[in-house]
């Protein structure tokens, strides 16, 4: 067991994948000699060489377009977008090709690609460095969207994403990169993509979160406990495809739901979760499904970004609202 932060855990998953499977390659801007601007790929070029840990020219679309070709020809690219805010320069390659190749070729060519990108606010960064736009990717058929909430899960989910036969957008909450450490097992570990986890059991309310909002939601649950509220917390881990079963089972038990995400409220994952609950568990609800989300604005420059991010206090208050207490 080693105590790792999330960035080290991400690095470990890639190192294991490179060692385990010769078809895995890493590519992106500054991923080689520099070890990645967040150090996610540190020391990988030394260990696996520049043919497998590839510093690319500055071109996001180029990185993803190359990945498509690599995947067609039997490689398993793990591509890095330096920030999710720059991934839009590769949007057309992702939407037009990564998400469609299997379908377009009737399964002849598949896209076992992982596109890693740091997302989210709270690190005093520049414009385009703080957004949480997972809904773009989750809205695209053919893509999977995975978002870890801690080091151990990051390692296991990234390992699973690289093994997955389909393209995965691996959205890394950069606010959590170095915020805490966790024990990560020495032996390889994977989690099932498309499966959520009940990380805290309770019967009064279901709180659903993922990524950087999970620790805040857990803290809110602890605070609610002091008032005698037993909150169940689900760590979604995969935003698409959604684990309906885990959600619905919990909702049937608690009858009250609060979804927490930092992505903007309108058309965000919370809206889809709400719709699924309406479909499958409407008559179990004792209150409308509630959402705590980012406002429908661009994250303000960093002096005011804390106003954008859902706070623990806001999560607690909205949970109380849902509980009518």
């Amino acid at each position, binding site marked *: 067991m080693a105590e790792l932060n999330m960035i080290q855990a991400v690095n470990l998953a890639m190192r294991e994948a490179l060692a385990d499977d010769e078809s895995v390659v890493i590519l992106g801007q500054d991923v080689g000699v520099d070890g990645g601007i967040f150090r996610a790929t540190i020391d990988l070029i030394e260990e696996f060489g520049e043919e497998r840990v590839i510093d690319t020219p*500055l071109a996001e*679309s*180029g990185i993803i377009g190359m990945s498509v070709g690599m995947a067609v020809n039997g490689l398993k690219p793990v591509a890095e977008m330096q920030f999710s805010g720059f991934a839009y320069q590769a949007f057309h390659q992702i939407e037009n090709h990564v998400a469609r190749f299997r379908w377009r070729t009737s399964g002849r060519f598949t896209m076992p690609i992982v596109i890693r990108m740091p997302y989210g606010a709270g690190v005093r*960064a520049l414009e385009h460095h703080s957004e949480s736009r997972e809904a773009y990717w989750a809205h695209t058929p053919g893509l999977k969207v995975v978002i870890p909430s801690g080091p151990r899960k990051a390692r296991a989910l990234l390992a699973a994403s690289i093994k997955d036969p389909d393209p995965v957008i691996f959205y890394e909450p950069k606010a959590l990169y170095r915020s805490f450490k966790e024990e990560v097992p020495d032996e390889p570990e994977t989690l099932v993509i498309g499966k959520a986890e009940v990380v805290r059991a309770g019967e009064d309310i279901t709180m659903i979160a993922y990524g950087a909002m999970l620790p805040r939601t857990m803290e809110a649950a602890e605070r609610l406990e002091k008032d005698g509220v037993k909150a169940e917390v689900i760590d979604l881990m995969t935003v698409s495809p959604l684990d309906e079963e885990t959600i619905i089972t919990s909702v049937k038990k608690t009858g009250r739901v609060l979804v927490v995400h930092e992505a903007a409220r*309108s058309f965000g994952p919370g809206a889809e979760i709400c719709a699924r609950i309406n479909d499958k568990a409407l008559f179990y609800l004792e209150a409308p499904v509630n959402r705590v989300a980012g406002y429908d604005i661009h994250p303000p*420059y960093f002096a005011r970004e804390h*106003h*954008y991010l859902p706070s623990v206090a806001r999560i607690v*208050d909205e949970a109380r609202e849902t509980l009518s207490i």
Partner: protein
Amino acid sequence: MSRRVAAQIDDIEYLSILDETGKVDKDLEPDIPEDILLNMYQAMLFGRRFDERMLKLQRQGRIGTFAPIKGQEAAQIGSAFHLRKTDWLIPSFREAAAQIWRGATPQDIWLFAAGYNEGVNIPEGAHDLPLCVPVGTQLLHAAGIAYGIKYRKEDGIAMCFHGDGATSEGDFHEGVNFAAVYGLPVVFICQNNHWAISLPLSKQTRSETIAQKAVAYGIPGIQVDGNDILAVWAATKEAVERARTELCPTLIECVTYRMEVHTTADDPTRYREEDEVAPWRKRDPIDRFETYLKKKGLLDDKAIKDLNDAYQEQLLKAWDDTEKRIHELDSADPLSIFDDLYEESPPHLEEQKAYFKNRLQKEAHNG
């Protein structure tokens, strides 16, 4: 049927007038009025002092990440100096010297760097875009602006800055191509500072020069010593005239060097050796221009000291002003985070704003 030369490609010129020792090529020396020479020197010096102060502010934790300009002052001032008020400046994110020359204030730049949207404060009538973080995207904006100039038959041009890294982006190709196809009055200034974060120029492109990329688009391209203010000035003068009178874009490659970090979040010791940086210290654009101006009798050590003293004082005051402004903004309510999304704010956004206001009161109440 034949196999013949399909196109004759002109040689790509390299222009250097003032070498690193401060020696000037008399045949190439442009005839620049003395007051303009001094103005350019002052703008470069102020840019350097501003940049140094900004780095200190960042290291003290008073402002956030930014991209230093050290070493690129000649490339920015020698080019932007040709712009009239009515011309457009389209920067990337490493052009503080050019932006200040155009009228941006240190106060605003620092306010922006301290994380306040109010720092982007473009006065009505100013033809300056804010800095552009997504690499290379601004080249197309320059083409669009220039299309407007041409369409309305205005007497203006657009000057667009970008770096060597941007030349790998698709938007670089599209921007230069559109400008060429439509015959637009754009001057593209490539500040080739040899590094895109950790990627050296040699891994960015196999082209011997960036200037030669212009040939593929059917427009003129020239490479200049980007640390030589006279060369940058002379090449840009030609390009600006060509844009104004012939509606023809030009690509100018200013060969310079990123003396500092990419941004303050970067650690260059991971990927470049001091041996590589050292020769560029001797090629400093300000040092050689000082030598030149001293030889011309336009500058002496006392004048340089006086300027430096004045700038230091000006910058101290600018930070004081910035802090005051930060204090004012922190004291005001932050409802402005809902501003400027639309001309008319839709109902759901107004509802969220009211909710936010309510939460502010609640959280203030709960301490």
